[in-house]
């Protein structure tokens, strides 16, 4: 297992190098002098010179890339033009908030999407199956910001059942320990903090989970239908096992394996969706941070956040591969 992960990490290196080249090139894509564009009108000559020096713009491109790489290894993602703080610490401060809703959304999506996929595969072309198809196509076609807006209007503004935005009611004082609102609330003495944290999470998590559940449901259905047509499933039925036993013990396990890959890939897309969702719900994660950076033309932050999103994605796909190897004996045998 260990050897497998090491080999997989090594195979990621060329891709990682190219990802770094892409992220590095982003600032250099800015037409004209990036320093002048970044600082905007009204910047003094000395400010421009200082930024040029900070970005090493006067050096040849290769040397600039070298500086960028050595900086990265030391955890230097640049400095935010808006706040003057290091980008890395700004991002790390907001990462737990994004992970909190993303992880919750993945769990919800798996719990909802899998049974839906199985049920519609075992009743192909039933009313339920068609309904699932319509709902999932709707889910895939819905802009994240529209769903977020509708849910916010209905459940927060009109019905008043859930909070409109934010992570915690403002009258509660919860210490920042882990950065995860739910865990911090649980650790604190404030009564009602846990409830408040959960209530604030419901809407953003629903928005993020709905896309993943829609795709996952459709994928499980297709994969399950394929498995149900396999010879060994027929053999199991012929041996006299009940339909239920065949579906849950034989077919489901095989058809869920490829679903892991889908969850991994869609998780990354969901992180992109977090930018839109966090913006609507004023959720203080990396997504909203990136939105503010776009508004302020704070390019080092956009660059840093882009890199963090790419790294999270690569890490997820590595985890998915490892999980796949653990769960599938065929892959495990090929590995050794």
């Amino acid at each position: 297992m260990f050897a497998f992960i090491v080999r997989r990490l090594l195979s990621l290196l060329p891709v990682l190098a190219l990802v770094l080249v892409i992220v590095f090139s982003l600032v250099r894509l800015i037409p004209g002098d990036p320093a002048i564009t970044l600082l905007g009108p009204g910047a003094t000559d000395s400010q421009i010179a200082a930024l040029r020096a900070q970005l090493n713009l006067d050096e040849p491109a290769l040397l600039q890339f070298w500086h960028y790489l050595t900086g990265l290894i030391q955890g230097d993602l640049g400095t935010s033009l808006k706040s003057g703080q290091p980008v890395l610490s700004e991002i790390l401060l907001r990462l737990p908030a994004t992970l909190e809703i993303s992880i919750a959304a993945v769990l919800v999506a798996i719990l909802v999407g899998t049974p839906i996929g199985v049920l519609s595969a075992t009743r192909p072309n039933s009313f339920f199956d068609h309904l699932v198809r319509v709902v999932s196509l709707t889910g895939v076609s819905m802009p994240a910001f529209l769903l977020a807006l509708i849910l916010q209007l209905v459940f927060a503004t009109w019905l008043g059942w859930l909070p409109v935005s934010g992570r915690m009611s403002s009258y509660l004082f919860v210490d920042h320990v882990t950065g995860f609102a739910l865990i911090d609330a649980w650790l604190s003495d404030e009564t009602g903090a846990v409830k408040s944290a959960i209530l604030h999470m419901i809407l953003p998590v629903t928005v993020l989970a709905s896309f993943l559940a829609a795709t996952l449901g459709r994928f499980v259905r297709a994969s399950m239908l394929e498995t149900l047509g396999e010879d060994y499933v027929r053999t199991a039925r012929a041996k006299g096992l009940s339909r239920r036993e065949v579906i849950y013990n034989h077919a489901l396990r095989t058809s869920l394996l490829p679903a892991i890959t889908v969850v991994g890939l869609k998780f990354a897309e969901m992180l992109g969706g977090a930018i839109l969702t966090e913006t609507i719900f004023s959720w203080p994660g990396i997504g909203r941070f990136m939105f503010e950076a776009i508004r302020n033309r704070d390019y080092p932050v956009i660059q840093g956040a882009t890199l963090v999103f790419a790294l999270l994605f690569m890490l997820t796909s590595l985890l998915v591969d490892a999980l796949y190897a653990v769960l599938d004996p065929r892959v495990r045998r090929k590995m050794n």
Partner: protein
Amino acid sequence: MIDLIYFLKRNTLAAVGVGILALFLVAVIVGPFLVQSPIAIDMGAKLQAPSPRHWFGTDNFGRDMLSRIIHGGRYTLAIGILVVGIAFVIGVFFGIVAGFTGGILDMVTMRIVDAMLSFPALVLAIALAAAFGPSLENAMIAVAITLAPQFARVARSQALSVSSLLYVDAANALGLPRRQILIRYVLINSIGPLLVQASLNVGSAILQTASLGFLGLGAQPPMPEWGADVSANLAFVRSSPWTALGPGFAIFLAVLSFNLIGDAMADWFNPRRRSQIG
């Protein structure tokens, strides 16, 4: 053609998609002659609720939302087709050449594709659009670049399988120039799955470009682009929800119609899936 009509009859969802698209086409072709200007400001009539005079209400500047949505539809249709077109040309060119040539060129191209697919699509589009500068054209180029790797992947695998076929060997043996083989034999015989890929991507091209517009990286005011209109009206959404929900639903319906059609096209080209539809 008869087959297609029969297919649409059996496949209600695809028919719904075609229906929405047809309505959408009529609205963007005829509509602009029937409504007032999308940028005519009337401060006396700002934030009015939907009424017989303004079917979809008015925004903060008293501009008619129906007119803005209809004019925005022209942009949206152009966005969907152009973005996928650009992505198709870039992706298919690199994919086919890589798959057909093989060797080091193939390896380098595919590693670049892998690297680009290591970014969440929207994140890469945001980073590119922010670097190019906020405008609708730049947002479209950014989205096209993020969609291109998928076309490159499909094109490469098609080129690989087609290149190994006997008629390509025969063309080689006849001494046809490589460029001619590439275009006349490999590209033409790979086109089916590429068109399916294209039809599946029109919806996401529209969705991504609208998302960039929503984030302020696409169309700039006063252009009546749907995504930009949703975010411009966010501040008034509690008191006047129609201002943001109108263009929002327009995006949803346009994307839905293309997704329904793309989904049906994928079924159509895949006989195994075709038989499952009732």
